[in-house]
């Protein structure tokens, strides 16, 4: 998916960037040492972080290698967020971090200390569905259901992104208010693969919600 354009560099983004560079350097040393000695981590292997997940603060001591996706699924047992590829290729792991959608498999949990995460479990429950979830049921916007939480998390963000005026590849006029067209929705949803092929029904569901909210 096209990540929303972020014009303002947040303090945390900057830190995360620096950390990534540091990790890169360490990996280089490790690779050089690999032939001679057993691998030994050069620093702490775990970190203690605090995530606010679906409004609830959670303190976790977690392996530094754990992705945000696995932190949710394995440590917090919130399995609504799915693992389809673990490489940012399918979108099944989509959740929101501080209000923006991310592929949670591409992000380490330790990069999210203090962040607010929303997963499908925080959107609605079977007895109290969110309008987007209800629209997916009403339009049969899924079959096997495995990509569905990711589709729904993306769909909710797509509507917000269009309303916020964030342009996409198919936006014709960057100065006008962006219209909620089929093409805009399809383009922005294209990071979420549905192998069952429910795309037409997902589009109908998103369009229904957009119209209700208009």
């Amino acid at each position, binding site marked *: 998916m096209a990540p929303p354009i972020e014009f303002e560099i947040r303090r945390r983004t900057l830190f995360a960037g620096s950390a990534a560079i540091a990790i890169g350097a360490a990996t280089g040393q490790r690779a050089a040492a690999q032939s001679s000695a057993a691998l030994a981590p050069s620093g702490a292997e775990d970190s203690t972080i605090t995530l606010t997940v679906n409004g609830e603060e959670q303190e976790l001591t977690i392996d530094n290698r754990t992705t945000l996706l696995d932190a949710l699924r394995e440590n917090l047992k919130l399995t609504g967020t799915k693992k389809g590829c673990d*490489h940012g*290729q399918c979108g099944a792991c989509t959740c929101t971090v501080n209000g923006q959608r991310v592929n949670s498999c591409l992000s380490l949990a330790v990069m999210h200390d203090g962040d607010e995460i929303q997963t499908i479990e925080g959107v609605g429950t*079977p007895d109290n569905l969110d309008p987007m979830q209800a629209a997916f049921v009403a339009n049969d916007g899924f*079959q*096997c259901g495995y990509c*569905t939480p990711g589709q729904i998390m993306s769909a909710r963000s797509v509507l917000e992104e269009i309303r916020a005026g964030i342009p996409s590849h198919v936006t014709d006029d960057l100065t006008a208010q962006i219209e909620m067209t089929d093409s805009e929705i399809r383009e922005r949803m294209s990071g979420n693969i549905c192998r069952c*092929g429910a795309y037409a029904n997902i589009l109908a569901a998103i369009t229904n919600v957009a119209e209700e909210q208009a």
Partner: protein
Amino acid sequence: MEFNQPAGDNMFDDSKVVGKPTHRIDGPLKVSGQAPYAYERHDVAEGQLVGYPVVSTIAQGRITNMDTDAALNAPGVIDIVTALETGEMPMPSDMNAAPLFGGAEVAHYHQAIGVVVAETLEQARAAAALIKVDYEETKGSYDLEAAWQEMREDRSDPVSRVGDFESAFEAAEVTLDQEYRTPSQSHAMMEPHATIAQWQDGKLTIWTSNQMIEWNRQALATTLEIDPDDVRVDSPYIGGGFGSKLFLRAEAVLAALGARKAGRPVKVMLPRPMVMNNTTHRASTIQRIRIGAQADGKITAIAHEAISHTFPGGAGENAVDQTRRFYAGDNRLIVKHLAEMHLPEANAMRAPGEAAGLMALEIAMDEMAEKLGMDPVEFRAINDTQVDPEDPDKPFSDRHFVECLNRGAEAFGWGDRNTTPGQRRDGNWLIGHGIAGAYRGGPAMDSGARVRLQPGGTLIVETDMTDIGTGSYTIIAQTAAETMGLPLDAVEVRLGDSDYPVSAGSGGQWGAASATAGTYAACLALRGEIAKKIGTNDPESLTFENASVRTGEKQMTLASFAADGEIVAEDTMEFGDFRGEEVVSTFAAHFVEVGVHVGTGEIRLRRMLAACDAGRILNPITARSQVIGGMVMGVGAAMMEDLAIDKGRGFFATHDLASYEVPVHMDIPEQEVIFLDTLDPQSSPLKAKGVGELGLCGVAAAIANAVYNATGVRVRDYPVTLDKYLDQLPAA
């Protein structure tokens, strides 16, 4: 009970629930992330460990050594199971061609050769990378083109021969002789193969993702050499399968062996980059089609010869199968070649045979229509047949292919198309229209179910049937509600557990017709039990409606019969030989409109339409979703999907979801589905057939034909990508 004669008038002809648009009853669980898939069952077993697969990095040869010392000493590692220590294991079933695990022999690239069991995924993965494997590599064969050149003229062992093809083809007024190529394809379901295994007192339970529960239970017992009664398989939610999860796969074996050795439950999910080479795929094909016809368009001779690769002992892709029965013609020749290669195992993928075969046949039909100067809709219609062309005494049970063509053409506006290729423009876009026919068998398999009427008047249905996104939960509930006269929300459906009666399972588009028949049989058994309680041995004298039973003037609620405890009934629908006395099949016509950019060659689909004939449509909502989903997979087959073979190293190079491209939202246009209002009494008591594979059949050819109509360039080598025609586009 046995289905041994055509269904007569029955309750489904006046149905209140079956056949009505019904939202998925499992929908609210799925959209809220509460439906538990295999790897997510934190609740079922305490102390789960994580297993990370170790896979072969050669395609063929022997493992000479596996050095696991560093891995065993790595943080968090509990134990390691290697193929060398396990030794050769019995083949799980005669449906598996390649061994899944065990022994020094490497049969294909990414074959499982070990599993590292650790406390966490991160630890298991890191340790797996420390295992050093030494191989003796042998050279395999991976070149289908070379095999085709060797076998192409060999007709010594045809699948079938009718009349004298060669003479009739020679004498025909108009002829076509062309070759077509389809690449290997991957199911690429969204949920990778995953299993949690637990041993307790010598008994094994797996929570897994599998389409065929009983096959899986038997196969696991066979390969582990334990009693099938000591194996339980549970698979209530499955994140897609498309044939990839029909058979026992390596991740379940690794989980079971890992759990046995570690003495704790172990869960294994195949990492996505291992899925394409470790599991099965649809084999690539080369197909030669020859058609001879009279000037009036009647086919007099048709030959379909094809080769596909297969793992030694496997079946490959049967691309010629549909051509035996789809179109008329007195002189026929069908030849299937197999080229044994040491690629991963080719096996069933959605519409095995027809999906690849129709990609070729339906381009050939388009080319032939053009040679004849006929409308391709008309050409197909005049070659329709109501009997098996190989056995004219055998009729089709219910075939309305011509109506699919005509209804589809009318709804699509086929008559308004441009008939001279490359002549319609919309700005920079070349506009084209294409059509293809679709044919797929309508099989059925024996299917059992158990029903439990509860004291409160609700009904529980239990069957090992699976719902792989097909809508099984919902149509089974509809069938039970209809048969017992209950509202839909009074029925609870429990699926995918080997503790439940053995069902047809999900495959070959037989699931819906079979499992609803099995549910019907069990409900009739329950009606029999209730009749006994009323004191009649004639259940048919009773009317079940409005959650009550009526006999004459008397009316009692269903709940009242179970007031003293639940009533349980069980039965299996067995499909007798009589079903095979006629050809039970499904039919469709696919129409597409494409735009091809005159400058860049980019293809954009503009709209798609399918007209389908598949007997009673049990639930128009879920059936339509099956068909549009099949159409999406057909878009992939036409435009992008390609498991590219590295002929030097013998593996699929495009083995993740970035390199093996499948359609995304932006690729899919408006889709319309028309279901003909047909019934097939020869198929099942509900007069239903499957649609799950029909929706895929023919779609790719319709797109290829539309690209030809748009550009005037005929591509016979899938996928239809712009590198194959960019230099031949009309002038901008």
